[in-house]
């Protein structure tokens, strides 16, 4: 438990992603089973301990500490588990040697064995064996609220780093495993065979694309498709534990989003693993022929635990299929793209047409013709073009030379720097997060700047130093880590698209804004107006 408590604190205080990865990887490498597996579960999904609730901790403390002192302390610290860990009375030193701190596994098993009836006497016995850091870790673990910024993705990356295995393999084998993940550690740390996941509807890692940097490609070697703007999903159907068939829908990160899209899950009755884009019916992308609404429409459906009939009616979702990984027990991933494509096309007539269609290939005789078609993509509100090597197997991750995304060129607009915030980690001494705005009218006639976006990349290290100096010498106001500047600097901002948004005062929100150029040469009043940005909206 001490090592886990130290890890927890280190993760709390570390801001850099790489340093978090290193700490987590070292812990996973050095800690024995099953402690490391339980720790991993606690850090990612949390461990549900039915007998311990947030109120349990309060009630325990009420028995030991004056209520007024508890309230004063809790208000100051701001976190009940932390307050309790600090206020917990050290057990009186007795002649008998105190029990040593529990291992994570012992703590978890003891917690699981507690009942509502005995938790008030059993939990103190565990707390008495720990120091303040240990008590904090135990209470956080028991109440399932870590909130220390460890995503499942980060945990898997750390796991891969710890044992020198491929992240894609970790993602593939992770699914279907339950804490303390002993089979997974046996595979990665001891070279045992990968866990047998047989008939479960599990996630397979996606094949991803690199941005196209070459000037041209031979379309005899590469097939072209439109790049649709939804979310990449994997639809998986397998016999499941019941043997009667189970379907799951996974996002690109491997999160199970089946509950948000029950109609898709219900629509697949063939055992298969399908790769595609989740979209909502409409005519925004590619007109009637494109048949897909904007990303904003899809957003109405994302992240919901339950879906109303009205939601399903107003935002009907479907999957536009790009690829097929498995069909009726046969793994197709090693086949060249052309053969997988043929299998996918042959499958389409067997699928429910309301919920699955095929991503069409773009018929272009050569690359120049494709480039010309891509030029029209913005008018059709399509994100860009995908290029796939015809010989390409389906490989996890981003492999060079096989798949390319060729996004349309970014939009650009000149904005004025308004606020800057200090970064974190290596950038903690630099003002590196920039908020910028456009004029809401004629700046020479008293117009004001309204914030239109925020960006923290796009610049070089040298440019960052320059920007940091600019912020420090042009500050007019400070709000904690934020500085307001004198609004004298013009920044050229590149972005993929701009949308209506009620969340911003300007009524607009950019997608993927980044600083493309510092325009120190341009006077602030010559920066663009909100109207110019609004004209680029294609909602």
């Amino acid at each position, binding site marked *: 438990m001490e090592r886990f408590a130290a890890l927890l*604190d280190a993760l*709390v*205080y*570390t*801001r850099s992603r790489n340093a978090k990865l290193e700490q987590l990887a070292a812990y996973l490498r050095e800690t024995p089973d099953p402690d490391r597996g339980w720790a991993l579960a606690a850090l990612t999904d949390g461990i549900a301990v039915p007998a311990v609730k947030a109120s349990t901790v309060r009630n325990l403390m009420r028995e030991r*500490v*004056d209520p*007024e*002192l508890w309230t*004063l*302390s809790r208000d*100051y*610290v*701001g*976190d009940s588990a*932390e*307050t309790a860990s*600090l*206020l917990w009375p050290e057990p009186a030193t007795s002649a008998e040697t105190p029990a040593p701190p529990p291992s994570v596994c012992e703590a978890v098993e003891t917690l699981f064995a507690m009942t509502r009836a005995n938790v008030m006497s059993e939990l103190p016995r565990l707390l008495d064996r720990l120091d*303040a850091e240990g008590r904090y870790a135990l209470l956080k673990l028991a109440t399932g609220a870590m909130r220390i910024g460890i995503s499942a993705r980060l945990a898997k990356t750390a796991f891969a780093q710890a044992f020198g295995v491929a992240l894609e393999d970790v993602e593939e084998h992770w699914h279907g495993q339950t804490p303390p993940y002993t089979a997974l550690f046996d595979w990665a740390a001891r070279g045992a065979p990968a866990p047998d996941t047989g008939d479960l509807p599990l996630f397979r890692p996606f094949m991803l694309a690199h941005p196209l940097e070459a000037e041209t490609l031979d379309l005899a070697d590469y097939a072209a498709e439109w790049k649709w703007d939804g979310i990449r999903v994997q639809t998986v159907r397998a016999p499941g534990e019941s043997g009667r068939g189970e379907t799951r829908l996974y996002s690109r990160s491997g999160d199970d989003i089946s509950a948000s899209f029950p109609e898709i899950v219900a629509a697949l009755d063939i055992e298969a693993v399908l790769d595609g884009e989740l979209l909502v019916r409409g005519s925004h992308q590619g007109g009637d022929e494109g048949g897909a609404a904007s990303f904003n429409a899809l957003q109405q459906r994302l992240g919901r635990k339950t879906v109303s009939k009205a939601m399903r009616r107003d935002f009907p979702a479907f999957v536009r299929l790009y690829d097929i990984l498995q069909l009726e027990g046969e793994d197709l991933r090693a086949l060249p793209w052309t053969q997988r494509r043929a299998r996918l096309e042959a499958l389409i007539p067997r699928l429910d047409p309301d919920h699955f269609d095929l991503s069409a290939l773009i018929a272009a005789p050569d690359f120049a013709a494709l480039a010309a078609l891509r030029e029209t993509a913005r008018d059709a509100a399509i994100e860009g073009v995908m290029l796939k090597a015809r010989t390409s197997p389906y490989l996890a991750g981003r492999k060079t030379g096989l798949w390319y995304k060729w996004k349309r060129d970014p939009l650009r607009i000149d904005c004025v720097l308004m606020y800057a915030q*200090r970064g*974190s980690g*290596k950038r*903690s*001494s630099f003002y590196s997060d920039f908020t910028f705005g456009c004029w809401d009218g004629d700046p020479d006639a008293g117009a004001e700047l309204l914030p239109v976006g925020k960006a923290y990349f796009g610049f070089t290290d040298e440019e960052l130093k320059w920007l940091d100096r600019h912020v420090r010498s042009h500050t007019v106001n400070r709000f904690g880590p934020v500085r307001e500047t004198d609004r004298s600097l013009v920044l050229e901002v590149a972005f993929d698209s701009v949308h209506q948004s009620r969340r911003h005062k300007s009524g607009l929100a950019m997608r993927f804004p980044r600083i493309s150029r510092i325009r120190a040469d341009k006077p602030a009043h010559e920066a663009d107006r909100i109207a110019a940005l609004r004209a680029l909206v294609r909602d």
Partner: protein
Amino acid sequence: MTARDFAWIRPEPWGLHIVPADCWVDPARAVDRALVTHGHADHARGGHGQTFATPETLAIMKLRYATSHGAVPVAYGETIALPGNVRATWIPAGHVLGSAQILLEHTGERVVVTGDFKRRPDPTCAPFEVTPCDVLITEATFGLPVFRHPPVEHEIARLTRALAVHPDRCVLVGAYALGKAQRLIAELRRAGHDRTIWLHGAIAPMCQLYEDFGIALGSLALVSQAPSREAMAGEVVIAPPSALADRWSRRLPEPITAMASGWMRVRQRARQRGVELPLILSDHADWDELTRTVTEVAPRETWITHGREEAMLRWCELNQKKARALALVGYEDENEEA
């Protein structure tokens, strides 16, 4: 039975007024006659007509204000007679070099002003002495039961472990220039760390002063004189807290930002400061030391100043001890020297 109201000592917003002697303890503004407990700027202001303090405190004030006008040195244990039949004695408080409690006696009544104090051993200053009295005027900077400082060895071990784990980085510790920095150095030495410790320019003069008073701090050097950035890898660097996130720190090799303060006990406080390695190292009494001191001194009344009076008042109430809170201004509450 004589009613005692201790009217001869009166808390005013800018300090404690000793009425018959017309002098002030740690006044927040210039007065004719000041009795100063220790050298931190919020207690030892400049510009008084006369300043009574220990020789160490006076030397610290001279370093700060470049003048020793009106300085009257008083050694620990020495009693001086003040006008109005008031006697004052300086007693070690264990806070920083030269820090004192001041015992005030008048018409048979004894009042002890603790100033800032701690009860833990500190190799850079004389230890706190329990002094019986009628009224104990105590600080309460860490007057909340969540503040229980861990043993200093524990925190020093965390610092040296960080050095060992990251040999290519340095540990940059934010520590107040008077007291905390020197105690940190002395504790590192006690733990066997004998390498050169690198200092920000604002820390060095106070270290020299400590050395002049016979507190050995070992090999020290200025960061500005380091041969290269790489030479700082694996070393301890000490700077005032304000320099941690400043451009100054860019000259260091990927510093692990640490902060030595009692406030580091609370995670959110440490996170707000962007600290990676919070070291819970305080020159103030923690909750257990504060309550233990009230119990051991056993005064008739406890007056509580600068800090979290509410929780201390509640504790006194629960333990049937007479207490009141004084609203003195001018002492930094959430200051960096804690």
